[in-house]
């Protein structure tokens, strides 16, 4: 029973990271109809930037803020400089370009930081918490992970729902030509959407890197699981992305806990295939209307 609770709590903590990646994918998908395969690679790059800042200043929080800001800048820059060029082209071009970004950024990180695994700092103690004498199997850091993602998701929800800029972002995502006719600066909104997604990705990178170690390829698996979470949620709904991340995190945590850690990724593949077979456009999306 204690074991079950332990796996559940660990699953929630891991699921929050998948949720952050999923949320960033949904943000970009809703705005630009591009699925950003380089999201994981961008998070890896910002984590390396954070590691450099931490190394120079010795302060985790400077590094944390630095990663978020660089995520914001790099995300916006990628939209402006690269993906905007393919938005009028067939969707396959965008897929290939973002895969090019993925591999290009990984190569860049390899050139500058080398291919070795680097250990990554945590802000809080990674020692397990306990109530009385019962160990919970989670740490302060796990709580920090869950809290940080929830806070970020909550802030985004508030911005989207209650601010003028959120309204413009939603209008652009909902119907770009109409939003433009109504006077929204659509281009800026698209860039802002990518920048916010870059920030979320950077957050996920900061949170996951202590446990995966940091290397140019370290975010590949995390990205794929984040993508799975987004698909479970249906790619359209931010709430679905968070729920999808949590479901995936908990399921994988049980699989890893009871069946052994090497099956986790196979379970992820099975989960993705299962969801796609049952509901090809995700569990939470409304019926898709194919354009004829």
């Amino acid at each position, binding site marked *: 029973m204690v074991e079950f609770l332990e796996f559940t709590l660990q699953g929630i903590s891991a699921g929050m990271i998948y949720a952050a990646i999923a949320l960033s994918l949904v943000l970009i998908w809703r705005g630009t109809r591009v*699925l950003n395969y380089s999201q994981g690679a961008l998070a890896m790059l910002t984590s390396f930037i954070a590691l450099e800042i931490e190394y120079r200043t010795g302060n985790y929080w400077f590094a944390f803020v630095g990663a978020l800001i660089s995520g914001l800048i790099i995300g916006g820059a990628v939209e402006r400089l690269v993906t905007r060029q393919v938005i009028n082209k067939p969707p396959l071009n965008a897929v290939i370009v973002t895969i*090019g970004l993925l591999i290009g950024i990984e190569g860049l990180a390899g050139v500058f930081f080398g291919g070795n695994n680097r250990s990554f700092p945590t802000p809080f103690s990674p020692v397990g918490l306990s109530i009385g004498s019962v160990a919970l199997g989670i740490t302060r850091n796990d709580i920090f992970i869950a809290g940080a993602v929830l806070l970020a998701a909550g802030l985004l929800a508030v911005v989207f729902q209650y601010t003028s800029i959120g309204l413009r972002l939603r209008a652009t995502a909902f119907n770009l030509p109409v939003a433009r006719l109504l006077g929204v600066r659509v281009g800026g909104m698209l860039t802002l959407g990518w920048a916010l997604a870059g920030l979320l990705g950077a957050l996920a990178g900061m949170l996951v890197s202590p446990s995966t170690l940091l290397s140019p390829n370290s975010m590949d698996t995390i990205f794929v699981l984040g993508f799975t979470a987004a698909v479970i949620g249906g790619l359209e709904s931010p709430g679905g992305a968070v729920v999808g991340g949590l479901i995936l995190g908990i399921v994988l945590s049980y699989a890893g806990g009871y069946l052994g850690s*090497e099956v986790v990724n196979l379970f992820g593949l099975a989960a993705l295939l299962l969801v796609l077979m049952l509901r090809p456009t995700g569990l939470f999306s409304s019926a898709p209307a194919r354009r004829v």
Partner: protein
Amino acid sequence: MNSSPDQIFIGAANRLAPWVRRTTGRRHVALAVAGAVVLGLASILLDQYRDYQMAEVAASAVAVAGLTVLIGLSGQISIGNGAFMAVGGYVAALLFMHLQWPLIAILVVSTLAAAAVGAIFGVAAARLRGPYLAGATLMLAVALPFFATRFSGLLGGDQGLGFFVTVPGFLGATFSPLRWQAWVNCGAALVAMVLLANLVRSRIGRSWRAVRDDEVAAALAGINVARMQILAFIISAAYAGLGGVLLAVVVGTVSPSLFTLSLSIQLLTAAVLGGLGSLSGAIWGSILLVIVPTYLTNVATSHGLTQATSSSIPILAYGLVLILVMLAFPRGIAGGISRLIGQAPLSDSESPTAPPTSWRRRSPAADRKEKGRT
């Protein structure tokens, strides 16, 4: 009147020409025979390192050809074809280790095994569109290497399995193994290419293009869209599987570190660089893919960069190539060549793949385009 060897040759060529010209299939066979002659001569005249590179290009070209047909003709995408290469390679190594089958049987059966796995995945894939499909295949590429560690008793874990091709006795004891590998790979690649070239020009190839350009119109014309998409996936997986076996021939082992995500992306890079949908493009792309990274790494190492840094430079180059080609020359090398010699491309659209509108539920870009037209 004595005729010189020249005249005999010209006479033979003149008599052959109508036979060759009559059907597409014969033209492909003739091209392949010419290719075999050139490759055989090159292999004998050049040094052993070129043999090694030829074998590598052949392995890559087969896998890339399968992928370029899938993306360029059927309009689907796979970022996970490295996983099908792994299936082919591992099946070949298992057959080699436990059953000691002859090489030709190993090649055929491992290709069929990869096709079978592709069929299972293709059934799922035919229901998926655009980003969902790309993501699912990406998952395949990331997750499949974990099979090797999960079933390490059978598949040898991180060490992998050995796969050695021995030179047959009739060629003599002094025949170089590298040259034999090059011959095996180039021969298998040429046969595979002829079959695929014929398929692409057949009713099936036309159906693929119809499905790619407009699924609804293709269905109205009586094409079974799902069946065509699954078939494309199976063919692509089979070619990836054969490519995997040929790669195993070159490397001598199969291991998880051989079939990584970056291998899958290399295939994509070669297909995009050569020109999506073009088989000759697949060959051009593979040649560049084999030669340029070695060159880049050598240049970087000779400029005093460390091993780790120089091995990342080709990866960076793949990324840049994918982005730049897609932005600037979406039809790749093959598109450039056919524009140079004034040949009509296989498809009329300017982009590598015509827009499958069904990918997007509501595309701002397409909306704008349509508004502009009316």
